[in-house]
């Protein structure tokens, strides 16, 4: 939907410059980018288990934020982290894209340090698919709390990114872990 909406925006000739920022705000945005980039990539990678794809997701997240939000907004870090989880989850749930990528992997087309060793490629694909499969099967909230928490966010940060109370994080996390364990064992 986002791609179509973006196309729609372009079709309506809404120039990006309409939402560009003055120099001082550009600096604020770049500071935010430097401060949050690794975190956003980390969250996306927890869902995708693919560094290159996680960095693609991070680009999309920051681009979207830049176009629609003030970098000085107090909710900026929470928004970015939440968006990283959502976009990454959307990717693993996009079957066509996943299948295409897997075909590319199988053909050894990706620029990957592991690509010289077919056995390692197979192992890595298996591990990656194990994570993605688990994330696909979980309810979005459960997948989100796992991605956020296991990428190193504190309970308070997880709560802020998910829009829930800190006291609820333990419950959501506990249930997500139990569900994940059941999924893996089934």
């Amino acid at each position, binding site marked *: *939907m*986002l791609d*179509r*909406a973006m*196309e*729609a*925006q372009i*079709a*309506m000739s*809404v120039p*990006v*410059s309409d939402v560009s*920022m*003055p*120099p001082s705000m*550009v*600096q604020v*945005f*770049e500071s935010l*980018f*430097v401060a949050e*980039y*690794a975190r956003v990539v*980390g969250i996306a990678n*927890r*869902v995708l*288990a693919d*560094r290159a794809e996680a*960095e693609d997701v991070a*680009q999309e997240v*920051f*681009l979207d934020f*830049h*176009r*629609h*939000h*003030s970098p000085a*907004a107090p*909710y900026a870090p929470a928004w970015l982290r939440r*968006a990283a989880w*959502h*976009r990454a989850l*959307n990717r693993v749930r996009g079957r066509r894209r996943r299948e295409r990528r897997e075909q590319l992997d199988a053909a050894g087309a990706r620029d990957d340090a592991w690509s010289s060793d077919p056995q390692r490629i197979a192992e890595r694909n298996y591990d*990656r698919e194990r*994570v993605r499969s*688990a994330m696909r099967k979980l309810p*979005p909230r459960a997948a989100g709390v*796992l991605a956020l*928490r*296991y990428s190193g966010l504190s*309970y308070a940060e997880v709560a802020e990114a998910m*829009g829930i109370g800190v*006291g609820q994080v*333990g*419950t959501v996390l506990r249930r*997500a*872990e*139990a569900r*994940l*364990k059941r999924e893996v064992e089934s």
Partner: protein
Amino acid sequence: MKRHPSRSVLRQMQDEPGAVAEQERDHVAACATCQRRSEVMATAASAAASVLDEGTLDGSAVDPLPALRRLRSTEPGVVAPKPTLVDRLRRRIEFAHRRALRAGAVLAVIAATMGTLVATGVASDIIKIFQPETFVAVTIDITSLGTFPDLTGYGSVKVLQTPHVTTATSLAGAASASGLHLLVPGKLPSEVKGQPEFDVMSAGSASFTFSRTAASGTADKLGTTLPALPGGLDGSSLTLNAGPVVVETVGSQRSLDPFSLPSTPTSTSGPAEPKGSHGLLGGLGGIPQLVIVQMKAPVLYSDGPSVVQYEDALLSMPGIPPSLASQLKALGDPSSTLPIPIPTSLASAHSADINGAPGLVIGDTTGIASGVIWQSHGLVFAVAGSLTDRQVVAIARSMR
């Protein structure tokens, strides 16, 4: 301490023991039941960690600088350019927009509150002001609205560009008439039957000019006195540009007229429905099975006072319920948030993710009526109808 800590606390204690009260830690240390529970949780956590371990970033650190360069190549605005005179002028206007948007959030509640009155059939002439980023519910006791004045109680409203409503019977026709790239929902619930029909509203513009005299008159009517006003507020104007808007209706109740504007059917087939008699959702018993609204996000302009001045002045106006004023003041970022008034006795609201965008869901599981509104890439979307909240969210998420 006899009572066992909650499982949530037990789980947090494994990760952040320092965040848990000492009393509870002491309890767990001495309680076999809690320790058993903790062990079960630890086992599940360990299993989860094992699965998720593949998602750990490998040895090389994530370097944001190459990524920032990549983003700059995609988005020129991320690079600080040397501003030209035109750029500086444009940015001043944009800054004025942002200030005005915050004030707009306040005005939007006033207008949207009257929108509630439209839905209940009390008022029929209203300008709706929208805000383009996120939507937050504020609760309103509708019994407090009995003496709530409309915008004309604080100044004058003038339509600068009258929008026109046309009808269409196909998506392509609506897209052509509106100039919007319209999204299409995926599979609809089985109870939603019938061919979709479309209302298209062209772009419109209206201004509101604040008047000390009008506000004083309202204060007199309400038996109060007008608070001190900041300089420059009297006579200042807010201008709203809105539209185009496309309203897609599926189901038997066709006559949706969200803006209470004249309907001018053109080349499309079928006669125009009677207007203005059904309110926002067609009135009680007239809720369509499904309504999908797609519109360009409106923009509100100010010609003078600052955001803070507008907010302080408008929230202190006579007739604004104190509970509403306090909710608005507590909003995190009024410049990007449109408050939606929710009558406490009629509806409930909660948030939902719509393909990465924060949405506000209004309604419940009864299926009598629910709706969801969200914004994405400069467009505002809404899905509503005689459906459950889960159904409208599912439809919203299926739109491609």
